[in-house]
């Protein structure tokens, strides 16, 4: 018979010792009404019970000991290896037993196998045994067989098809518990095929008189609708009639089923709007009714059912005046009468608030809901604060001012020690930044950045950048803020930060002196933050003369000598912390300084020549080219190394002259990731000038004669093309394509719009920019794009700019796709769009056959 493990096994592993120690502590005692208490505290208060209680039915179940014996044997293994040995022996025995004819112990063998499976060992050889046991006439075997099927089989395996017939038979079994097993298994692992076969059976069971079966059949129907959407129609009439039921289990199942049908099908939604009065009636019954011991949880009558009904009301009331009117009173009643001292009460209140905010509710009710959230926000319980911020996030777009009132509390939550709460607070804080509070909010956000967990840093940094760009009170403040972020979290910013900041600095010419001084000082203190070092190098290269002059009114006069500057650049070049790209920046900066200083040109010459034999090919090539500039083209050096012109935004495409277009067209994507800061835009005439300049030299260079240009040691720093290299020399440009074709809309459905912009940058390569926007009234989250192309085409998707599309086109998500089509096949692309809108996941595919501008 079953031996209660009072005297635990003689030998125990460390882990088991541990869990035996806990037996004293482990015993739980529950007061059903108190659900907010933490388990740990409970144990200590009730640690007197040291005995094992074995329920009667357990002893009765096992005529043979094996399962418990095996578990004990496995647990007493001292090492992993020993455990493996025990399990291998057991598995061999189980396997052998499976092969034998029925010996009455089949269910124990399968149960043993399931335990082994839970420990992570392979148990697939039990699949057929499950199928056999399910077909057995004995309840005990069926029970374990179905359990095994749920654990070992999954819908993709053939074995699961074998049980369809057994399930079908059991669904019409005379015993409700056998029926229940079949229903439960179907709801857990029924494949689409199974669902189609068994749907009529389930519909029949929905009309049964037995409420135990009905509630299960309702949830089975939910599973079937999820698997095979078109079967929803079949269950609609039965679902409607289930609402008259008194049994809460059945009601709950019916509400879930109707919710599912409404979410899937707008017509069903329209039809089920008529049930709103019924639902309101049921809900009223729950709220008003006195204490009912069956369903009471901490003074709330059946919170599970209440939450479900509230959610269904939300779906039905959305976009419908009349339906919303019908539920206004009820919602007000629930919102005012629900006890908020316990978790369950708060769960119901939370759901009520969400419903009120989502339907077309009266303004008074809305105020009430927002106030409840405000109260949640002040709650001591972190869980409640968390959900408060979750919900405030949802309404920050519509009720901005109402949320703004709680700014102080939200900002305080940034300092909470819990990462989940911090994340919510951060998202909400970023949404609350506005022109009027930018200075104070930014102070908090920067403080948060310096102490926040690493996984939140990137999000914080990009949030700060966005906010700063939108609301910066002054240019200087803007630059200071970005520099602050770079000094504290330089490693976590996105790649485009560096070019963006350089563009910003270039355009604020009155602050050049201030910026270069500030950056120089930052460089002296820390050279580990790569983006900061890159920007600093770039600025020192560009504005080295201003740095040396030292007449900056805004900072204390710092006398900087030429040697100091060159020393710091050389430190960057030599530091092991510097990334290759950073070294590129430093070398170019050094080169640029050669026209901005007077005395130390020879030193620069020697630095540059040292790197002519650098192991890093990029750097070496650059150094060789700069060397050539010194030696052969010294007369051009000053002109070539001139200061970068002010970059005008969005001037591309209209100003580019023909020759520039020619030159740029040839640029390959390989040049993008050079050490040079890639700047997105540049005036065209500069490029033209340079081409002229080259044309005048003794070795005439056409954009097409790329190889000869490099070989002859022209001041060109990349082998691929002439145009791009010249641009690099100027201080760096991103190779930009020819005048881009206009963006075309490739997808427009349910308010989601996807446009496509093609930029061809070489014979076979092209960059496709997908831009998505959302014109709905509700936000879209988890927006992702996936692309598929014919096999011979290489596809590289860059990271998207985000996955959240706020309502009414407030922001867009862009994603770059780089395609390389070396075989010149007919280019096609299939894009899959998936997102979550109003709580339901949507997915669609669109095929793009023609690419504009190709």
């Amino acid at each position: 018979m079953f031996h209660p493990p009072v005297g635990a096994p003689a030998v125990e592993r460390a882990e088991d010792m541990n869990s035996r120690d806990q037996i004293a502590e482990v015993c739980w005692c529950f007061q059903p009404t108190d659900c907010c208490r933490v388990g740990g505290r409970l144990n200590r208060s009730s640690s007197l019970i040291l005995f094992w209680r074995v329920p009667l039915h357990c002893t009765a179940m096992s005529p043979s000991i094996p399962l418990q014996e095996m578990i004990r044997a496995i647990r007493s293994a001292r090492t992993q290896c020993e455990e493996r040995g025990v399990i291998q022996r057991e598995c061999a025995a189980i396997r052998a037993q499976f092969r034998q004819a029925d010996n009455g112990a089949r269910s124990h063998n399968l149960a043993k196998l399931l335990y082994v499976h839970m420990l992570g060992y392979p148990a697939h050889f039990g699949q057929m045994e499950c199928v056999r046991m399910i077909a057995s006439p004995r309840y005990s075997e069926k029970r374990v067989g179905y359990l095994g099927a749920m654990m070992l089989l999954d819908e993709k395996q053939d074995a699961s098809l074998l049980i369809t017939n057994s399930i079908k038979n059991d669904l019409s079994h005379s015993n409700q518990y056998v029926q229940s097993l079949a229903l439960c298994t179907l709801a857990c692992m029924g494949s689409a095929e199974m669902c189609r076969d068994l749907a009529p059976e389930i519909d029949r069971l929905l009309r049964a008189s037995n409420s135990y079966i009905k509630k299960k059949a309702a949830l089975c129907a939910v599973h079937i609708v999820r698997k095979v959407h078109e079967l929803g129609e079949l269950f609609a009439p039965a679902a409607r009639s289930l609402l008259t039921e008194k049994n809460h289990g059945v009601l709950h199942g019916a509400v879930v089923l109707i919710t599912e049908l409404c979410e899937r099908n707008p017509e069903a939604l329209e039809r089920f709007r008529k049930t709103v009065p019924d639902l309101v009636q049921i809900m009223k019954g729950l709220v008003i009714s006195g204490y009912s011991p069956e369903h009471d949880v901490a003074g709330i009558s059946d919170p599970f059912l209440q939450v479900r009904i509230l959610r269904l009301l939300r779906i039905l009331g959305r976009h419908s005046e009349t339906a919303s009117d019908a539920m206004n009173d009820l919602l007000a009643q629930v919102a005012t009468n629900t006890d908020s001292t316990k978790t369950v009460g708060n769960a119901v209140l939370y759901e009520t608030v969400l419903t009120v905010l989502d339907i077309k509710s009266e303004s008074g009710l809305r105020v009430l809901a927002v106030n409840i959230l405000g109260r949640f926000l002040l709650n001591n319980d972190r869980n409640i604060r968390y959900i408060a911020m979750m919900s405030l996030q949802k309404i920050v777009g519509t009720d901005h001012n109402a949320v703004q009132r709680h700014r102080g509390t939200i900002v305080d939550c940034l300092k909470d020690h819990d990462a989940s709460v911090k994340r919510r607070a951060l998202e909400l804080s970023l949404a609350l930044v506005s022109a009027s509070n930018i200075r104070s909010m930014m102070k908090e956000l920067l403080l948060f950045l310096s102490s926040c967990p690493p996984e939140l840093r990137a999000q914080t940094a990009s949030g700060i950048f966005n906010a700063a760009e939108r609301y910066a009170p002054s240019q200087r403040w803007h630059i200071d803020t970005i520099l602050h972020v770079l000094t504290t979290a330089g490693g976590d910013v996105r790649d485009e930060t560096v070019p963006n900041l350089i563009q910003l600095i270039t355009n604020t010419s009155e602050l050049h002196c201030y910026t270069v001084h500030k950056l120089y000082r930052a460089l002296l203190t820390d050279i580990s933050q790569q983006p900061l070092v890159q920007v600093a190098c770039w600025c020192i290269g560009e504005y080295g003369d201003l740095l040396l002059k030292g007449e900056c009114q805004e900072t204390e006069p710092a006398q900087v000598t030429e040697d100091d500057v060159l020393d710091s650049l050389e430190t960057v070049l030599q530091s092991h912390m510097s990334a290759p790209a950073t070294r590129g920046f430093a070398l170019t900066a050094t080169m640029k300084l050669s026209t901005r200083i007077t005395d130390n040109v020879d030193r620069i010459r020697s630095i540059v020549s040292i790197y002519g034999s650098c192991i890093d090919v990029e750097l070496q090539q650059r150094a060789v080219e700069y060397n050539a500039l010194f030696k052969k083209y010294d007369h051009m050096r000053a002109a070539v190394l001139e200061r970068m012109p002010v970059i005008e935004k969005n001037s591309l495409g209209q100003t580019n002259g023909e020759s520039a277009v020619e030159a740029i067209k040839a640029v390959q994507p390989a040049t993008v990731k050079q050490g040079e800061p890639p700047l997105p835009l540049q005036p065209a005439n500069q490029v033209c000038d340079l081409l002229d300049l080259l044309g005048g030299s003794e070795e005439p260079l056409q954009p097409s004669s790329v190889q000869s240009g490099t070989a002859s040691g022209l001041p060109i720093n990349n082998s691929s093309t002439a145009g791009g290299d010249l641009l690099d020399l100027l201080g760096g440009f991103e190779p930009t394509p020819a005048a881009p074709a206009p963006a075309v809309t490739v997808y427009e459905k349910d308010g989601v719009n996807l446009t496509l912009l093609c930029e061809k940058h070489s014979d076979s390569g092209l960059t496709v920019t997908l831009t998505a926007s959302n014109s709905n009234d509700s936000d879209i989250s988890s927006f992702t794009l996936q692309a598929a192309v014919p096999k011979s085409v290489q596809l590289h998707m860059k990271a998207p700019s985000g996955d959240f599309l706020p309502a009414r086109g407030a922001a867009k998500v862009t994603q770059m796709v780089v395609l390389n089509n070396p075989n010149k096949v007919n280019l096609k692309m299939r894009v899959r769009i998936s997102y979550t809108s109003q709580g339901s996941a949507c997915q669609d595919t669109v095929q793009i056959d023609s690419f504009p501008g190709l």
Partner: protein
Amino acid sequence: MQKKSKTLLLLIHQLLCIYQFNYHLRKMRFLLLFSRQGKLRLQKWFTPISEREKKKIIRDMTNMVLARQPRSSNFLDWKDLKIIYKRYASLYFCLAIESQENELLALEVIHRYVELLDKYFGNVCELDIIFNFEKAYFILDEFLMGGEIQETSKQIVNRCIESSDMLQETMEEYMSKPAF
């Protein structure tokens, strides 16, 4: 060439269709019970997931939840899901729900399951669940089904489990009677 790419696209499309199976909406995705040492005690998956994926998720969950500091909130963001966990004595109950679900109610679901176990075993402890794991599954299957709550009343669940056990017992007795 064009034909080839067409068939390829078809293939890709089919693959995407198969992939879609994993995108079914489930209010609850999975429930895991594991000890303070990270040993799995019970696993229930409400969506079809491959064994490999399951192992990875279990590893992720134990690592994440066990690393949480005391007195933190009971919620975690993980991929597109919310992880609601709660510790009872030496055992962690960890429930994954969709992000638009009610977190507080999920906490209540966990608590209800613990209450059911407690009622059944009488002052349940981790070892009860280890040695009678199939019972723990049977109780769960009476309470939750296909990722939804099946029965909102504790008493009814208890009664159903008792009757099922009774049915099993009587059948066992019947079977073990000598056959003369």
